[in-house]
């Protein structure tokens, strides 16, 4: 295979940005979500509107921000308000079309874990002594509770358990708690009347959800990867029968990503493969 003219993080950004349609109102978290939405706005979705939970609407970054509420995140925005308006009115009240979210783990139903777990996945878990800690869910829970969403995640074995060790953002089948018991029910039945996961974009592939089972199947694998190897890294019996190889990104879009979206390598530089 010829030398790739794009990096893995670039491929992830391009693949994720395809979910952003022109005119959409998109809630983005820090990191890849922000990169992806910016790319979409500078390519095929110039009329997409970016919302960030610090309180900004329709920012047009001159320099990619480190935070969803730092001075750079407000550049060019048309409304500066607070977190309540963004997460309450726009995400909760369904005035946004989709969210792009990161996570530490994602499971077969698109449930996310952004926060913590036992030392080994599946071990008993003591909330007062978590085995590992990530930063936490922030607004990802809120966006996932009210909006359709796409997940960005680094492709590593431990990140794809059959059931997340600690569920922070709701996918298609979620937990309800009754008289000391945990029951798994469809998200609508639990009370989540809107939204749900549309896709998982990893650093190797794209998963989507089966209409009937609501379980993630392999939809695309990136050039240089293969479905059988990917299946070995997934904690559930993932259906790879529908998988096709992703189109490589165009040189043009990679140029825009490098030269216009993130010329300082704020995000492109920092992402692990």
């Amino acid at each position, binding site marked *: 295979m010829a030398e790739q003219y794009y990096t893995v993080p670039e491929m992830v950004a391009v693949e994720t940005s395809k979910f952003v349609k022109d005119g959409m109102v998109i809630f983005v978290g820090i990191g890849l979500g922000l990169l992806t939405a910016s790319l979409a706005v500078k390519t095929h979705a110039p009329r997409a509107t970016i919302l960030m939970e610090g309180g900004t609407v329709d920012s047009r970054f001159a320099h990619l921000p480190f935070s969803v509420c730092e001075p750079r995140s*407000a550049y060019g925005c048309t409304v500066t308000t607070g977190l309540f308006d963004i*997460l309450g009115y726009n995400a909760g009240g369904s005035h946004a079309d989709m969210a792009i979210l990161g996570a530490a783990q994602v499971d077969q139903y698109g449930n996310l874990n952004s926060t913590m777990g036992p030392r080994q996945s599946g071990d008993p878990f003591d909330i007062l002594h978590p085995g590992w800690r990530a930063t936490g*869910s922030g607004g990802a829970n809120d966006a996932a509770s009210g909006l359709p969403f796409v997940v960005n995640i680094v492709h590593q074995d431990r990140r794809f358990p059959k059931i997340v060790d600690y*569920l922070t953002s709701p996918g298609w089948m979620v937990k309800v*708690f009754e008289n*000391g018991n945990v029951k798994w029910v469809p998200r609508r039945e639990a009370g989540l009347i809107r939204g749900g996961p549309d896709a998982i974009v990893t650093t190797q592939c794209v998963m989507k959800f089966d209409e009937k089972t609501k379980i993630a199947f392999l939809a695309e694998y990136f050039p240089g990867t293969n479905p059988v190897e990917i299946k070995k890294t997934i904690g559930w019996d993932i259906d790879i029968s529908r998988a096709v190889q992703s189109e490589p990104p165009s040189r043009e879009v990679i140029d825009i990503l490098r030269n216009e979206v993130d010329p300082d390598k704020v995000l492109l530089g920092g992402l692990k493969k």
Partner: protein
Amino acid sequence: MNEKSKIMSPAEAVKEFIKDGQIIASGGFTITRKSYAIYYEMLRQGIKGIKLCHVTPGGPDELLAAGGCLAGITGCYVGDELVQVIHPFCSRQIKSGNIWHEDYSHYSMILRFKAAAMGVPFLPTHSQIGTDLINPAYDVEGKMGLRGKDERFPLAKFHVMKDPFWPEHQNICLLPALSPDVTIIHAQLAGEKGTARIMGALGGDVEEAYAGKKVILTCDELVTEDYMARDPNANQIPHHIIDAIVPVPYACHPVSSYMNYDYDTNFLREFHTAMGDDSKRDKWLDEWVYKIKDHWHYLEKLGSKRLSSLKANPAYAYNPDNDRSAYMNK
């Protein structure tokens, strides 16, 4: 009635309003508008047993943890963003059980403050439904024995009920009010009675301020109330809910104040590195906190060249030439 001035130094504000064991709400948002001048002073005055809560966390969590001020944290996140920088000391303390962490979603936290601000016991949301954020087995404040004894803590972390108004009667999650003993926020401008103008994104500061039993406001500029009244639509917080006004330059260093100064990534990188390293942490705290007399001494140690390099360009509200390489792993 002789009105006492609310204007004071960071040391005076901490001495007058902050006591051991309080619930303290920290305003701002990770690397924006966090009143470090007050948090440094809390370490110097040896405040203990603080229950920190916030809509959005940031470096002060790590600082207070390292200074031994913290009993627990109620919030949604442990880090400084900066492309997913987790607080190394804080998260280690949480894993070891030395500091408890009660987990809510971001919006849930603002609802808890908003409920207190509105004087109601709860607010409803669809957030958290279906997740371990409302798993009764994971009620940390309950496990810590805080419920049913201390009026400041509700009897439950959450309450799921059926909507009584529409025939589907769907589940909805009620979140209890959270009224901190003291809220600490930062605004770019304050009037001499305390009217506050926050520029840029507001995060959760208005809700946290109204929720607080007392409010400490740091500000970049102190102006007359008459000046504030020239553009009342630009002001969010009325003077009558503010108890202390602390006007000091660079009150939020090493983080930013939109339109006035940018964050100091080199400082933050040193801070984060030292906090994660047992051999460096105490030295860093000595150098930047305990051996510092007051905020003026802190600014002097930083030096005018460094501070000038952070000054915001009005066309951007930040410094477009700011050196951010410490967090860009090229």
